[in-house]
């Protein structure tokens, strides 16, 4: 089979270009602009690929498949990254000394994201996950002189390496049971030999655990708050949104395609993980005093909602996950972009924010409403699709009801930020200064969040046409 891989190759190549850019350009902003240009190229290549224009024809030996689902997801990931660059690019170059390398690593991560969303072989999945993870370990520790950042990086590395071990073990066992790394091979083997091989089930469960670790689903979430809190905030923003969503896409592909026939074996397990993730994420987020840490837990609870797609595993679920990816990533990037500008990450840091920056406060409110799932925002329809997918399975309604109870709790911590911004007076003048371009981007982003909340077809139609 001839693979189409415009974006994959371009993003890897541009990563290398970025690596050497710091020799050529001494000005930080030039490097940033170069990264933005590169990303636009990658995005354009990906969109051309969706429309059938292919630059490179390479035989991938059925290990990679760029179908509509993966291309659409890649587009969303690339657009989110572009938004992230435009909003927080200036803060990326400020995160440490090696500003060009940060962009390099982000481009490499995007390569991994593209691999994970389109894998057809467990080896490619492994490769993609590792290409994502290793640069992330470095980015987490980017603030070299900060002890918290170092600690987070080490913690993330140790835990990540451990879960990678689990994943390899799982892949090996699955290979042992089915004799194939390829999705198609696994599916054929299951249909021929049946699904009751203990080797296969064990391998699948190990894969389930290690993927749960990567998307920070409970009870494998313990690294998340510390790592997200310790990492420089700009990189937390990237980790919590694009990376997490991409791994979810890999997760749903793995269990939907390779292990689709084993659904009765893993469905209840995933239901329990989902419920636990929702519960722990939401309840713990309520007690946080720092907005950054709250967002870390919020990302766990949002992961719980995305797990519902995995649980349901039907067409609604795939559509829902696409929408959820877009809604969650865009809103969270927006909130983080504001958070980075603030000095004080506690809830009190937002006190009186609406008086100093009425426009930013209004857009942040829209993002928070979207995360809480209030209608007219993309977040509502994303949650709606998840609930619809869950109810379409026609059993285990308790999971849907539990999910909405948890969503009601999530309102508590999201609205604490809104309350601080609007109803509390700031004692000190935390006058942050932002450029008009930043404000303009935020307004556009908020408009997109609302537009997707009214016309989800803007994204979802791409899935079909």
């Amino acid at each position, binding site marked *: 089979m001839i693979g189409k891989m415009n974006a994959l190759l371009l993003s890897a190549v541009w990563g290398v270009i970025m690596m050497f850019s710091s020799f050529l350009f001494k000005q930080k902003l030039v490097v940033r602009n170069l990264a933005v240009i590169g990303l636009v190229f990658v995005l354009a290549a990906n969109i051309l690929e969706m429309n059938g224009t292919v630059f490179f024809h390479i035989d991938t030996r059925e290990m990679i498949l760029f179908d509509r689902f993966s291309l659409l997801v890649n587009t969303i990931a690339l657009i989110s990254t572009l938004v992230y660059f435009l909003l927080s690019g200036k803060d990326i170059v400020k995160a440490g000394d090696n500003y060009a390398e940060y962009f390099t690593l982000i481009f490499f991560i995007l390569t991994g994201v593209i691999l994970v969303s389109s894998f057809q072989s467990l080896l490619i999945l492994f490769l993609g996950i590792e290409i994502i993870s290793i640069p992330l370990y470095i980015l987490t520790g980017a603030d070299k002189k900060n002890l918290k950042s170092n600690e987070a990086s080490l913690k993330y590395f140790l835990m990540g390496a451990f879960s990678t071990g689990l994943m390899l073990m799982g892949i090996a066992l699955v290979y042992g049971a089915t004799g194939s790394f390829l999705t198609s091979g696994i599916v054929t083997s299951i249909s021929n030999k049946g699904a009751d091989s203990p080797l296969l089930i064990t391998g699948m469960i190990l894969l389930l655990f290690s993927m749960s670790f990567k998307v920070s689903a409970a009870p494998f979430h313990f690294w998340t708050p510390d790592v997200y809190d310790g990492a420089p905030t700009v990189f937390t923003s990237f980790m919590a949104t694009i990376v997490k969503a991409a791994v979810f896409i890999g997760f749903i592909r793995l269990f939907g395609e390779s292990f689709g026939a084993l659904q009765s074996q893993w469905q209840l397990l995933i239901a329990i993980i989902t419920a636990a993730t929702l519960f722990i994420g939401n309840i713990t987020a309520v007690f946080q005093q720092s907005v950054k840490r709250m967002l870390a837990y919020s990302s766990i609870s949002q992961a719980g909602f995305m797990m519902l797609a995995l649980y349901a595993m039907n067409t609604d679920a795939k559509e829902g996950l696409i929408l959820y990816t877009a809604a969650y990533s865009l809103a969270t990037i927006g909130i983080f972009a504001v958070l980075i500008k603030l000095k004080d990450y506690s809830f009190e840091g937002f006190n009186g924010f609406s008086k100093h920056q009425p426009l930013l406060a209004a857009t942040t409110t829209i993002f928070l*409403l979207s995360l809480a799932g*209030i*209608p*007219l925002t993309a977040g*509502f329809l994303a949650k*709606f699709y998840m*609930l*619809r997918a869950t*109810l*379409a399975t*026609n059993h285990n*309604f308790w999971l*849907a*009801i539990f999910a*909405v*109870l948890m*969503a*009601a709790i999530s*309102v*508590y911590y999201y*609205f604490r930020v809104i*309350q601080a911004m*609007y*109803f509390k007076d700031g004692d000190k003048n935390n006058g942050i200064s932002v450029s008009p371009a930043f404000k303009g981007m935020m307004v556009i982003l908020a408009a997109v969040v609302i537009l997707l909340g009214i016309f*989800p*077809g803007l994204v*979802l139609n791409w899935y079909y046409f």
Partner: protein
Amino acid sequence: MIAVLLIVIPLISGLAAFFIKNEKAVRSWALISSLITFVISGLGLTILNDTASLQFSYPWLTNLGSSFSVKLDGLGQTLCLLTAVSFPIIFIATWNSSYKNASRFFALMLLSQAGLMGVFLAMDALLFYFFWELALIPVYFLCSQWGGEKRIQVTFKFFIYTFLGSLLMLIAIIYLYQQTPAHSFSIASFYSLDLKPSAQSWVFWLFFIAFAIKMPIFPFHTWQPDTYEQSPTAVTMVLSGVMVKMGLLGVLRWLLPVLPIASYEYGDTVSTMAVIGILYSSLIAIQQNDLKRLIAYSSIAHMGLMCLAIFTETRIGMQGVFIQMFNHGINIIGLWIGVELIERQFGTRKISELGGIAQKAPAMAILFVIIALANIALPLTNAFVGEFLMFTGIFSSTITHYNILLTVVAGISIILAAVYTLNMIRKVFYGNTNSLTENTQDIRKNEKIILAVIVAAIFVMGIYPKPFFEMTNSIVDAIIGKSDMVPFLKRH
């Protein structure tokens, strides 16, 4: 077209109001917008009262089976008229209150009006849910920003409470949607569902909790007195006059006709909750010293009675509910205006600190007393018509064994209402003046006019309610007819 305009006018003018910085200008802007809305809803009842102008449908989320479909039926006409009447009244009555950030205040008020109109008009379950939430958001900001001392916590409790209810309703809506053969959210497809009794019963509770929180029905009422007390009075008027009707509308349009078997099955349970609430809140109202809390508890009792009349499912009782929904809105807004006038003049709402106002402010006393008497359903007032019909309905109900008991217990509430209302009037308006009320000024002209309009409405509806019955006849038949289609329900 009328139906769309009722939503679009407040929506657009509300969004525009954010940018009018002058306080006087934005005030007039809001008033003019609400008057236009009022005129349009008037047109919808009279000249343009035909299907073509009352109905509108446009495909929206086509692959989900949802459309932007709105229609002004008898129920919608009643509640949209109430909304359209209330907002100008509220704006005029609070003309002299000044607000910080006035442009935001009036913008949010108009947006909440748009949301409410949407809830009353939506003929598509998903659209209904959208508006149901959207009506809440502006009110949340209004209460939290311009309310009393404890506003933030109280409003937050209110918000989370109602949000939880509506999420449960969302599950119910999605479940019903999955059951429709064509996967559609339209009300017609919901009405043609024929669910098994076992499925109906749990869906019923998901819906009912959302509506019960909104109305509110005992034991889901705990947010209400605090919220009414802490909100700025203009918002309290919206909340108590119009917004609580969302719950009743939900039951009438989305619960009874969709789940007739469960509504019958749990009719007695709901009736019991309603009756407990009626007695309980009336008794608490007697104890209240704060005018706002007194009216808040009295409102719980009135809403309980309407809920009771709905779930005893008689034609005449339902007719009473329809007229009472409107009357309750008008009367309670009148009461709040009185409270607002008293609070603005004396800086207190404590009944114990007031007295003898009638000597100094006769016009206010006369108008307020008439409204208060309407609140206890004295004959010739509008509420008498509604309550009389509702009690007749409850008494003659054939679907419950306890019709007499329910009538008697709920009837006690009329006596209790007289106790707390007359007591309040006696203490606030009569007796001797004290140091606080010695220099009472009578009310201003605009306030006089608006109270007089309310009093006039009270008498007109009390003496000649016939046009109103004609407006709601067919929709009452439709709702009752839906549950008659399950014939064994009526066999006793």
